[in-house]
C-alpha cells in the first residue's frame, strides 16, 4: 500500500518516543527501589489500595504501618536488623494485588508481607504468599477463604481481625437476647464481600436463634438512594435493621432511615467504627449498636498511646482499619523478634504460635487457621459518642 510522508513522520515520532520511554521504565525496575540503610535488613512489604475506590482506607492502613515500623526502627530494628519497607499499591483490584505481591516477593525479595485491605485483594495475595512460602498477615480482610480455602489451610497466611462468621453471630445473638428482636431486616452491599459475608451469617444465625428475617435486600457499591429499600423495610415492620457495611454507607442509610421515620433499631459490625460515623449520620445513628474490637473509652495504655501517636503524626483520629493494621504489623514484628532472623519459615512458626499478644484492639491468640481468638465488645452510640456496653467472648 502506498502511504506517504505525513503518516510516516508521525509514526516515526511516536515510535521514537515510545521505545526510550519504555526503556526508562524497565531500567527503573531492575535496580529495584527501596528506602533503606545498608547492613543486614529485614525486608517487609505492604500491599494497600493507595488509589481507587477505597483509597481512604488504604491510606490509613499505610499510615498505621509506617508508625509501627518507625517505632520498631527507633528501638534499633527487630532481631538485630533494621527494617526496610516496600509499599505497593493494589488499587483494590485482585489482578493488581497479585502483581503487587509478585513484585514484592520476586523483585524486591521481601521476607514478610502485611496486606491487603479487602478480601478480594487479599485472597490472591494469600495464594501467592502460600506458594512462595512468605508469611503474610492481613489486618482487615474478613473472608474465611483468605486463610482456609477449598478445605486447605494456607499456613503462611494470618489475620488480625475477626472473620465474618464471628461478628454476624455476635450481633444476631445480641439482637435476639438483648434487644429482644423478633424480626430483623438486613441491607447489604452485594458487591462487597465483607458486607455480603456478614449479612449471610447474621441471617442464618438470627433464624437459627428463632428470629424471623423479614427483609434481606442488597444494594450496589455506588448506590446512594435507599428510599425504595427503606420504604420496603418500614412496611415489613422489622424490629432491628442490620447494616453490615462501612461507616460511610451506614451513615447515609441511617440518615435516610430517619427521614423515612423508620422505627427499627440499627445494628452493625466493626465497619461502623470510625470517628466519621457520627459526622456523616448525625443524630440518625443515635442509639445504634455495633460490635467492635475495643472501646475508645478503654483506658488501656496501648489504646491511649496509639490514638495520641496517630493524632500527632496525621492530625486525625485513627479508624478501625488502621488500628487493626497497626496490631497486625506489630504481631509480625514480634514474630520476627521471636524467630531471631528473617527466615520466612521461622517467622511463620512464630506467628502461628502467638499467644496473648497485647494489641490495641485486644488480646490475641492465633488459632490453627491463622485467625485470632479474641473477644469483641458491643458499643452503643449515645450522645454522639461510643459507649461501651458489654464484652462478648468467643
Amino acid at each position: 500500500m502506498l502511504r506517504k510522508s505525513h503518516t510516516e513522520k508521525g509514526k516515526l515520532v511516536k515510535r521514537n518516543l515510545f521505545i526510550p520511554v519504555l526503556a526508562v521504565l524497565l531500567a527503573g525496575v531492575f535496580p529495584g527501589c527501596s528506602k533503606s540503610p545498608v547492613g543486614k535488613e529485614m525486608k517487609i512489604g505492604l500491599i494497600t489500595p493507595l488509589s481507587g475506590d477505597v483509597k481512604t482506607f488504604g491510606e490509613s492502613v499505610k499510615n498505621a504501618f509506617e508508625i509501627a515500623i518507625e517505632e520498631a526502627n527507633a528501638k534499633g530494628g527487630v532481631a538485630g536488623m533494621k527494617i526496610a519497607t516496600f509499599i505497593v499499591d493494589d488499587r483494590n483490584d485482585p489482578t493488581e494485588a497479585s502483581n503487587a505481591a509478585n513484585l514484592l516477593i520476586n523483585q524486591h525479595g521481601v521476607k514478610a508481607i502485611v496486606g491487603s485491605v479487602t478480601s478480594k485483594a487479599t485472597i490472591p495475595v494469600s495464594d501467592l504468599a502460600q506458594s512462595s512460602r512468605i508469611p503474610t498477615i492481613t489486618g482487615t480482610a474478613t473472608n474465611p477463604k483468605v486463610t482456609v480455602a477449598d478445605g486447605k489451610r494456607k499456613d503462611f497466611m494470618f489475620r488480625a481481625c475477626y472473620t465474618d462468621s464471628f461478628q454476624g453471630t455476635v450481633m444476631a445473638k445480641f439482637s435476639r437476647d438483648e434487644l429482644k428482636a423478633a424480626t430483623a431486616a438486613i441491607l447489604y452491599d452485594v458487591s462487597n464481600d465483607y458486607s455480603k459475608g456478614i449479612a449471610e451469617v447474621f441471617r442464618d444465625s438470627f433464624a437459627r436463634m428463632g428470629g424471623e428475617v423479614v427483609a434481606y435486600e442488597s444494594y450496589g457499591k455506588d448506590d446512594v438512594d435507599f428510599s425504595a429499600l427503606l420504604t420496603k423495610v418500614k412496611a415489613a415492620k422489622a424490629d432491628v435493621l442490620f447494616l453490615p457495611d462501612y461507616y460511610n454507607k451506614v451513615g447515609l442509610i441511617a440518615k435516610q432511615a430517619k427521614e423515612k421515620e423508620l422505627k427499627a433499631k440499627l445494628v452493625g459490625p466493626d465497619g461502623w467504627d470510625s470517628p466519621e460515623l457520627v459526622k456523616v449520620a448525625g443524630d440518625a445513628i443515635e442509639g445504634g449498636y455495633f460490635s467492635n474490637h475495643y472501646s475508645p473509652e478503654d483506658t488501656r495504655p496501648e489504646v491511649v498511646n496509639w490514638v495520641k501517636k496517630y493524632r500527632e503524626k496525621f492530625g486525625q483520629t485513627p479508624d478501625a482499619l488502621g488500628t487493626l493494621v497497626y496490631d497486625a504489623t506489630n504481631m509480625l514484628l514480634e514474630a520476627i523478634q521471636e524467630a531471631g532472623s528473617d527466615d520466612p519459615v521461622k517467622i511463620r512458626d512464630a506467628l502461628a504460635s502467638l499467644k496473648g499478644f497485647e494489641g490495641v484492639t485486644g488480646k490475641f491468640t492465633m488459632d490453627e487457621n491463622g485467625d485470632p481468638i479474641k473477644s469483641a465488645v458491643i458499643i452503643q452510640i449515645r450522645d454522639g459518642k461510643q459507649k461501651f456496653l458489654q464484652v462478648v467472648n468467643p
Partner: protein
Amino acid sequence: MDYFVQQVINGLQLGFVYALIALGYTMVYGIVRLINFAHGDVFMIGAFIGLYTIERFQWPLAAVFVSAVVGCTVLAVLIEQLAYRPLRHAPKIASLITAIGVSLFLEYFTSLRQVFGPHYYSFPRPFPVVSWHWYGILVTNIQAVIFLVTILCLLLLQFIVFRTKMGRAMRAVSFDYVTAGLMGVNVNMVISFTFGLGAALAGVGGVLYGIAYPQVNTFMGFMPGLKAFTAAVLGGIGNIPGAVLGALIMGQSETMVSAYLSSTYRDGIAFVILILVLLWKPTGIFGTSRTEKV
C-alpha cells in the same frame, strides 16, 4: 396502596435528579454527536462546590446554586475548548477516548489529598428536614425542593431552546452544522454555549443530589452519569423531552424493582428495559430516525 404511592414518589425523586444530568448528555450529543463521558464528573464538581460553599462559606442556598452553575459551566467550556474542539474533525472515536481520559483525570486528580481528597465527605444540610404526612404518605421538604427546582430548570431550558435566538441557533447547529455556519451562525460559540448549558444543569443536579443523599466523594459521578446517559438514549438521544422521560422511566423502574422484586436486580433491570426499548424503537422513544443519504 400507600406503599405503592410512597414508592412512586421515591421513584420520582430519583428520576428528577437523573433528568438534570441526562439533559446535559442529550444536548451535547445532539449538537456534536459526542458521548461526553466527563459529564458525570462535572456533576460531581457541582456537588463539591455545593459542599464548600455551604460548609465553609455558609452562603444562602440561592448563592450556592449560582456558584455551582458558574463553576460547572466554566469547567465544561474549558474542557470543550482544550480537549474536544481540537478533535472535532478527527475520527469520532478519538473524541470519545479523550472524553474518557478527561473523566478519569477529573476523578483521580480531585481524589488527590492536595485537591479534594479521597474520603467520603458529609454534605451539610442547608435547611432542616421537614416532613408532611398525607393520608399515610410521607413527603419531605427535600423531595419538594428537588421537584420544584428541577421543574424550574426544565421550564427555563424550554424557554432558552425554543424562545431565544441562541436556542434557535442550537437547534440549527444540531440539525446541520455546515449549513448553519453558512447562514451566519457562530458554530463554535453555539457549541460552547451548549456545553455550558448542560453543565449548568449538572451543577444544579450536583447540589440537589448532595442535599438528598448527603455524601460526596470524587467517584460519585460515574454511576449516576452512566444511568443518566442511558436515560437519554432511552428517550431518544438528542431529544430534550425524551431525556426527561427516559430519566423518569429509569428512576421508576429502579425503584419499582427494589420495591416489588429484589433489589439485587435493580441495575440490571434498567438496562434490560433499555435493550427492549431499543429493539422496538432503535433510536429511542422520541428519537428521530436519521435518514442516511447515499
